[in-house]
């Protein structure tokens, strides 16, 4: 008996009792739909978080004072006191450790920013000229301040897009204008591009040389965070280790500073999502197992119901193997069909959930392939026992069965 005959016979058997076939498949359908939906939403969310971190520039290590946690690019208001100094930045810059590409410093304070009658309160970031490159945040109009302006603590300012729009009729008109920040007046030399991390609007900031901020605005020599960009991802670990020693030598106390490796954060995220996936997989595994048992149950019923048919088939020349294959194909087809319906349902479901919750969904081809293979596998596995029973029926006993 060839495969197409067997398939044909299996299909007609499944169709002959549609409701029962559907109920049998339900376990598999729900299981597979759940896997697809959860993996899609999980991957979508992970990708978004990773993307947000990546959008703040790659290969970064952030050093902040005190014991503190946070993400690079999302500096945390530190409670560790004032430990990092401008001097540390200069020393580190002159050290030229291999693998370090850029070092930037960021101090953020809030000040009123005023032009004419317009006034807004904004985050004033005192930083260094490499900021746009490290943060992957470009100047749109004009330019960023340069090394000379930093060294001379000049009164220049680069506006975030939103602030430029708030203060001026159009961002282009901001260039060259003098605006007030706290107690100093600075000349606008650039306006940043529009950018958001997905969590916050980066346009509500203004940038001035760190020296200008320290000397003319706050009078403080301390710095809030330092971000080191490495040449490649491979450099991250060695540079992080170097920084550990570097700051320990200078500050003498590991409690006085924190080194936050972007890779560690990505690893943590991946670890968390990995654990989640494992957990979900386990739950799904259980639901698929239940689905499989459902299939086995129905196949056993089906074998019993069709005992006479099996006897007849044997009487006209079916070998045990022919009968075995017939039932195995039937159960596999049943679960494969369940798997397909589940996949469709999972895709539709994740899109719907995504629409209503704004969690992004990424349909994973691997998840689909795996879910489908598993459902076929379940049909095979749980179909074998009933099929073996069928194939081993004694034809006479089977024909006499009422």
């Amino acid at each position, binding site marked *: 008996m060839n495969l197409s005959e067997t398939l044909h016979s299996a299909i007609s058997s499944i169709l002959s009792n549609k409701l029962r076939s559907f109920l049998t498949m339900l376990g598999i359908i729900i299981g597979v739909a759940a896997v697809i939906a959860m993996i899609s939403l999980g991957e979508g969310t992970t990708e978004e978080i990773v993307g947000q971190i990546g959008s703040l520039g790659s290969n970064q290590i952030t050093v902040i004072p005190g014991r503190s946690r946070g993400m690079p690019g999302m500096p945390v208001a530190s409670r560790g006191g004032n430990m990092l100094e401008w001097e540390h930045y200069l020393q580190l810059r002159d050290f030229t450790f291999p693998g370090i590409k850029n070092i930037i410093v960021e101090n953020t304070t809030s000040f009123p920013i005023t032009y004419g009658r317009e006034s807004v309160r904004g985050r004033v970031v005192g930083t260094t000229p490499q900021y746009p490159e490290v943060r992957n945040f470009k100047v749109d109009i004009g330019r960023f301040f340069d090394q000379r302006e930093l060294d001379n603590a000049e009164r220049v300012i680069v506006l975030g897009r939103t602030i430029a729009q708030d203060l001026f009729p159009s961002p282009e008109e901001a260039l060259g204008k003098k605006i007030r920040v706290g107690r100093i007046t600075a000349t606008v030399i650039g306006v940043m591009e529009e950018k958001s991390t997905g969590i916050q609007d980066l346009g509500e900031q203004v940038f001035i040389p760190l020296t200008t901020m320290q000397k003319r605005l706050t009078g403080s020599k301390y710095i809030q965070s330092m971000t080191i960009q490495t040449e490649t991802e491979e450099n991250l670990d060695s540079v992080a280790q170097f920084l550990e020693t570097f700051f320990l030598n200078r500050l003498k106390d590991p409690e006085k500073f924190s080194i936050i490796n972007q890779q560690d954060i990505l690893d943590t995220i991946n670890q968390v999502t990995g654990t989640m996936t494992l957990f979900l997989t386990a739950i799904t595994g259980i639901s698929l197992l239940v689905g499989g048992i459902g299939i086995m149950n129905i196949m056993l019923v089906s074998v019993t119901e069709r005992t006479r048919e099996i006897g007849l088939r044997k009487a006209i020349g079916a070998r*045990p193997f022919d009968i075995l294959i017939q039932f195995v194909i039937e159960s596999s087809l049943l679960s494969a069909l369940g798997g397909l319906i589940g996949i469709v349902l999972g895709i539709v479901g994740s899109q719907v959930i995504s629409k209503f919750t704004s969690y992004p969904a990424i349909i994973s081809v691997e998840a689909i392939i795996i879910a489908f293979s598993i459902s076929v596998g379940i049909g095979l596995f749980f179909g074998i026992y009933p099929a073996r029973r069928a194939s081993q029926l004694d*034809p006479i006993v089977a024909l006499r069965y009422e």
Partner: protein
Amino acid sequence: MNQPVIKVEDLWKIYQLGEVQVEALRGVSFEIEEGEFVAVMGPSGSGKSTLLNILGCLDRPTRGRYFLDGQEVSQLNENQLAQIRNQKIGFVFQTFNLLPRLTALQNVELPLIYAGVPSQKRKEQAIKSLEAVGLEDRVHHYPNQLSGGQQQRVAIARALVNNPSIILADEPTGNLDTRSSEEIMYILQGLNREGKTIILVTHERDIASHTRRILHFRDGQLVDDEIVEQPLEAGEILKELREEKVVESL
């Protein structure tokens, strides 16, 4: 060399029903030559079906030997038995045993599927077989759309389709009225004339009289081997029945 198609020697079949042993066959021996038309007759419970099932390789004897075409059947494995059932033997049952979800044609095709015949050839052969039993206009009917007699004819077509040399029929007319029974016997007599060896189980003398030899069974034993001098002709009886009907309707 003219060896018998079927030869059984001291055949026993004992069923174990809990504590009780049921001896369905108790030392049966006989031979059947190629082309014979044999009835196995006896009261209910005399072991006729048990014998036929063994002859059809559906069951194995507890003791004794069974040679089919000179080959001892007890030596064969499950797959070889399946092949014999498929190629050499056509089985007809009292209860037809058609698969309800398949059309007449599909039912007849079944043995060919297990013989590995390709689809197109299968269909041709099945239709030819249905024509042989006069059902060419019922090809796409489902069993529940056919009368009992028609269903049994489909079953005979199925038994014929692989061109087996032996037809085994277990009370094929048991569930049928006189007229349908005669139609079945008419077909079987025709097949026998074409050279098929036919063994028919029945408990009705009227049916057995259509054959040329009757093996009488009682309590699992062969008690008489009778030659029928003048077998009834189903064709003639059908003709008479038809005339009667005409008279009735007048």
